[in-house]
């Protein structure tokens, strides 16, 4: 009986300690792809591991090369049903992708930036950096916009991707 009380006491103490420890504000363990799409998605690291993956080596602001690995944003948008390829014409070109980070940071892209018949930019949703999972303020997911010289659109702590059509 006494040991049961001790056990309950220990569990309570652990519960209080956990409750008092502020949560780390890193990004969520999955991100959503939503908006005016036929197949909205919610993707975790496991989901990303099953998709076509690519690597990108980019210099950071100090000239150090970093290798990121992940899934092309083009592939993710294609699976979600965004109008790419021969569907990317007319009113579909008046649309944008709104990318949000866990801390409220937001940037936009157009489908024309992604599509292979247009700018064909290499944009990854990365989950690994130099072979290791992204963590802390970087992760678990971030964008890597290879040809952006400034890194400001390479959103860290990715939370959501939203597709918005301006003309229906």
């Amino acid at each position, binding site marked *: 009986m006494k040991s049961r009380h001790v056990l309950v006491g220990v569990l309570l103490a652990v519960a209080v300690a956990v409750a008092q*420890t*502020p949560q780390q*504000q890193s990004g969520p363990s999955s991100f959503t792809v939503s908006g005016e799409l036929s197949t909205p998605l919610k993707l975790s690291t496991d989901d990303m591991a099953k998709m076509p993956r690519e690597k990108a080596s980019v210099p950071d*602001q*100090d000239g150090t090369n970093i290798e990121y690995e992940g899934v092309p944003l083009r592939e993710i948008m294609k699976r979600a049903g965004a109008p790419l390829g021969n569907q990317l014409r007319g009113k579909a070109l008046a649309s944008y992708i709104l990318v949000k980070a866990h*801390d*409220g940071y937001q940037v936009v892209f157009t489908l024309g930036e992604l599509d292979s018949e247009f700018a064909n930019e290499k944009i990854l949703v990365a989950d690994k950096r130099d072979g290791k999972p992204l963590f802390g*303020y970087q992760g678990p997911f971030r964008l890597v916009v290879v040809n952006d010289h400034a890194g400001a659109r390479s959103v*860290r*702590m990715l939370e959501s991707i939203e597709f918005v059509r301006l003309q229906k």
Partner: protein
Amino acid sequence: MKTLAIFVAVAWMGGYARAGDSGAYDWNLPKGFPKPRIPADNPMTAAKVELGRYLFYDTRMSVNGKSSCAPCHKQELAFTDGRAVGLGATGESHSRSAMSLVNIAYSVALTWSNPNMSQLEEQALVPMFGEHPVELGLREGDDFLSRLHSQAKYGELFGQAFPGEADPFTISNITKAVACFERSIISGRSPYDRYHYAGDDNAVTDAAKRGEILFFSQNIACFRCHGGFNFSDAGVSERSVRREIEFHNTGLYNPYPAPNVGIYEFTHDPADFGKFKTPTLRNVAVTGPYMHDGSVRTLEDVLDHYAAGGRAHDNPNKDPLVHGFPLSKEERADMVAFLQSLTDEELLNDKRFSNPWPSK
């Protein structure tokens, strides 16, 4: 087997010595650090670094034999001095705080606010010969070179550092050697580095991990100025594309009191009044007091300053990045824990950077 081990060890040491003799310099850089950009006329060599270390700590380098580079740049304080403003050999105060020399090899501009000063060889002349204020108080033509000549150790060190020169005891060679020593002071072995580059998840506390996320968050965004591996936007390396350095007015004063007027002193552009260089945050927990004039005492005070959006809100040059943000006491403590995780204890005690002269 033992004989073989000794043979291998001797062979390795021989190879190491030859590498040193041939001038090859092993930076032994931490992971994530690019190679620094070095002036073509002053390549790094182990011999110059060693001569520079002796000169750095030598009181013969001052007018009255009382000072050297070291009193303003103490190793245990990450090569700062713990004072609000520096103090020269003759007791004259500097108007600004002594900057850390850690990772100075990566700094595209030197001192707090001189956009034209980019070479350590040139900068070394300022504390040596400057008169406003007097720092080391040397004068060209006085006998300080002969004072160095008289020290037998220097015959060996100058000869090794500048082989083949008939008289290597020159001011130019002194500044080259001091610059090489300063460039060798690389800091990248902090708990933060072990956490990020060595995969040691326990190297930093949970508080430091939370603080790091705040540091890089959109609202607080310290990283916009204190970014990159050296936590400064004033960095350059061998591989980086040359870019204009940014200087910042952090809203300390309006107007900034002379002589600390920032880069305006050199550009004479009113928009540059009060703009200073972003110092590295590596080892920042031991480099207080803070800001160009040491007017902010602790890291908590620094965070409060930025959370308040500066203390001179009406300064028209205040950087828009100094916009203020809500910061709880817990968040402030987390951010301090993160900044403390940047302290490289190995550097602060590394014998390669210590005073080589026997204590008196």
